[in-house]
């Protein structure tokens, strides 16, 4: 790296990123709301956003922390149910606007998922590899089964079990999904580009060496796992507000696998990869709807082809940085800008 090359000052990079982010947020929201995008397409775009959050959250646990949890559907269910129940009760009160209170519901979904993730993480993260996968899979299933049967046990209507929880205020729209995706990307990015992020990456690369460097590996593994569960819960809350109806069946083991496939396809440790892959894997079945009998074949083929020709995933561990790109275009060498808008990460 040339030392003589000029660098954009840090505040300018932030300013550029913030301005771009706000411009993109407002213009795309205006575009969606102008009616030139059909409600069907809007729904697909929102679903893409929810899957992006899921992929980004799991990427934190898998790609950065190097663990293999398979219970993220459970955290998603927790986020979805806690937010949905909260929203149902709060909107039953007079004078409460559902869309105004929704951020609180999303936050509640995230916090509850994070709390349970923390409790599960303490015993589960003592295990490694396959064992961690199996134990988190077990915990994920426990969450699903509890949600399915808790009403029968406690004797009052709470989750409505298999009959599914209905009449959840449909508050998820393009604007708040976009905002959540951006915040997820921003927070994960800033945490990873700090001493905490370095500790997390160090654990992935070599746990014994990290421990010998004085890193509290138990703390950082739990921290990373809890943060991952938090964002998964946020995605679940958005999902509940998106569908309006949720049932425990949607958060089974296959959902966890689906998120994992998204992360692996995008490239473990690449936020850009997670975002692209979530978009592709959400949009592909919709695009191929005309050939509905063949679309699962196309989906599977895509996975096989990517794994054969690019086993590290679409993006490997490459990440995008606006300032690096600008730097290349302008002959500058810039590093470590902090992007804020959807679909862009560090270098």
């Amino acid at each position, binding site marked *: *790296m040339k030392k003589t090359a000029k660098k954009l000052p*840090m505040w300018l990079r*932030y300013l550029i990123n913030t301005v771009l982010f706000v411009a993109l947020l407002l213009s795309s929201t205006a575009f969606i709301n102008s009616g030139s995008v059909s409600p069907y397409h809007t729904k697909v775009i929102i679903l893409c956003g929810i899957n992006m959050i899921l992929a980004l959250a799991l990427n934190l646990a898998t790609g950065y922390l190097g663990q293999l949890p398979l219970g993220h559907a459970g955290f998603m269910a927790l986020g979805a149910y806690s937010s949905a129940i909260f929203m149902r009760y709060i909107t039953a009160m007079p004078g409460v606007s559902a869309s105004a209170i929704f951020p609180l519901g999303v936050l509640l979904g995230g916090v509850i998922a994070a709390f349970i993730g923390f409790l599960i993480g303490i015993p589960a993260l003592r295990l490694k590899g396959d064992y961690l996968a199996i134990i988190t899979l077990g915990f994920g299933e426990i969450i699903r089964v509890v949600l399915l049967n808790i009403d029968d046990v406690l004797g009052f209507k709470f989750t409505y079990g298999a009959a599914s929880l209905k009449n959840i205020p449909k508050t998820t729209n393009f604007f708040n999904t976009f905002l959540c995706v951006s915040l997820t990307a921003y*927070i994960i990015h*800033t*945490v990873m*580009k*700090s*001493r*905490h*992020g*370095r*500790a997390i*990456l*160090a654990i*992935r*690369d*070599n746990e*014994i*060496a*990290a*421990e*010998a*460097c*004085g*890193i*509290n*590996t138990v703390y950082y593994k739990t921290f990373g796992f809890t943060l991952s569960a938090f964002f998964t819960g946020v995605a679940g809350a958005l999902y509940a507000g998106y569908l309006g109806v949720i049932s425990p069946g949607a958060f089974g083991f296959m959902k966890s696998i689906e998120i994992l496939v998204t992360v692996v396809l995008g490239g473990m*440790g690449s936020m850009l990869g997670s975002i692209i892959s979530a978009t592709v894997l959400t949009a592909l079945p919709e695009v191929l709807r005309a050939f509905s009998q063949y679309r699962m074949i196309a989906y599977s083929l895509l996975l096989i082809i990517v794994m054969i020709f690019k086993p590290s995933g679409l993006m490997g*561990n490459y990440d995008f940085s606006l300032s690096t790109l600008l730097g290349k275009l302008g002959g500058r060498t810039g590093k470590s800008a*902090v992007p804020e808008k959807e679909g862009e990460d560090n270098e």
Partner: protein
Amino acid sequence: MSKLVPVPSRGMVPERDVESPPVLETIHLGVDFGGLVAVDKFNIVIGKTEISGLIGPNGAGKTTVFNLLTNVYKPTRGTVILGDKDISGMSTRQVCRAGMARTFQNIRLFKDMTVAENVMVGLHHDIKYHTPGAVFRLPSFWRGEKYAKNKALEMLSIFNMQDMGDLKAGGLPYGAQRRLEIVRALATKPMILLLDEPAAGMNPSETAELMENIVKIRDTYQIAILLIEHDMKLVMGICEGIAVLNYGRIIAKGTPAEIASNPLVIEAYLGKKEA
């Protein structure tokens, strides 16, 4: 400079130099793997700013001793005293925080991180800012990161590696990886540095340079160094005290000259003379 003090007899604590208390002292340290006694009655005393060597034939238990000291393996018996603290039973992380850093025989770098970042992991506890500081990019974050980056490059300059800061650690040549591991260990601000075969795989000129640098590190940071090494030129050249390990027991301790002429050591390395 205090020497490795010989242990008079079983059950007795080694003599201490009262004037300058030792930085590391082990008392009857030992570990069993199942029924196998891997290390037994390991007693050493290492003075402040002393460079000592731990040598012995393959399989003698040298690396096991390092793993016992840093608690990668839990000792079956014995005590380790670092400075004025009893660190036996502490976790690897706490041992590091108490002031003992180490390198590994099979290099354990953070391969996907850059050279500077590797050192910055070692500086983890030297940087003070919290998660909100990182998320909101508060001034404390920028101060901490700037300090860490500069400090990392400054420490890399010991081995003249300050220009390699932005390279991927996994892509470095072998010798540079070993040197980087030493810098990373130094970054944790140890009182004593344990080097596990620092010269393994290095050519003679690299080894000579390493010898100079080990002495330089000791002089600059005023720390003690304990090293495992097979390269006798290095061990005899820089160590002020040497302990020889065979079958998990110390068979000789002393200055390089004493060790070189010790019949027990010669026997351990070359075998018994035919009668």
